[in-house]
């Protein structure tokens, strides 16, 4: 399956771009997706423990299953205000 991968803040440099298509095996959990991220984009690995993941605009837990066409966003700790 394909997902749209969005990166923000320090995750942009680690992924190499703010937005890209990403090929994945079907029906991965978010926990599995985190493991694949570290393999496909090694620079993101040290940041991952503090990165939250949103699917289609909502923060998700690691047991959630990612579907084809999803928008997967990598969200470092925030600093708005």
């Amino acid at each position: 399956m394909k997902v749209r991968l969005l990166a923000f803040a320090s995750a942009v440099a680690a992924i190499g771009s703010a937005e890209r298509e990403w090929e994945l095996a079907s029906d991965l959990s978010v926990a599995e997706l985190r493991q694949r991220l570290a393999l496909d984009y090694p620079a993101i690995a040290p940041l991952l423990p503090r990165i939250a993941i949103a699917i289609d605009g909502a923060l998700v837990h690691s047991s959630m299953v990612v579907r084809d066409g999803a928008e997967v966003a990598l969200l470092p700790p925030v600093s708005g205000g």
Partner: protein
Amino acid sequence: MRARLVETDFDIPALLAAVADPACGAQALFLGTVRNRNDGREVLAIDYSAYRSMAENVLARIVTDLESGEPGLRMALEHRLGRITVGGASIAIVAASPRRDAALDAVRRALQRVKTEAPIWKHEIYADGSRSWREQEPLVPTAP
């Protein structure tokens, strides 16, 4: 209710007018502004970026939650994105309420929630030419 991301400076009188109501005894405003120093370094500007669609939903939810918790409370919340130089404002939160304390409380609580829940990031630009991301508050999904 009005919550949005903007690219230009705030129109404060318009924001206050947006929440004004004859049943209200108070209006409160909070403006976050870019300081010339942070952690001992001289700051020239901050570039604000966001996961826009999600950030707009989060800002709207914050306003809706607070308004539904206080009778007669009326709020507006805007966050600016892009480059903001020292002295410029990055966030404007306004509230009007029948009870006077409620307007100040609502503004304070909205600020706290924006800082911890909205997918918005500061990229500080220093006088020495360097820059750095400020990544402060890890986002946490609500209980499953």
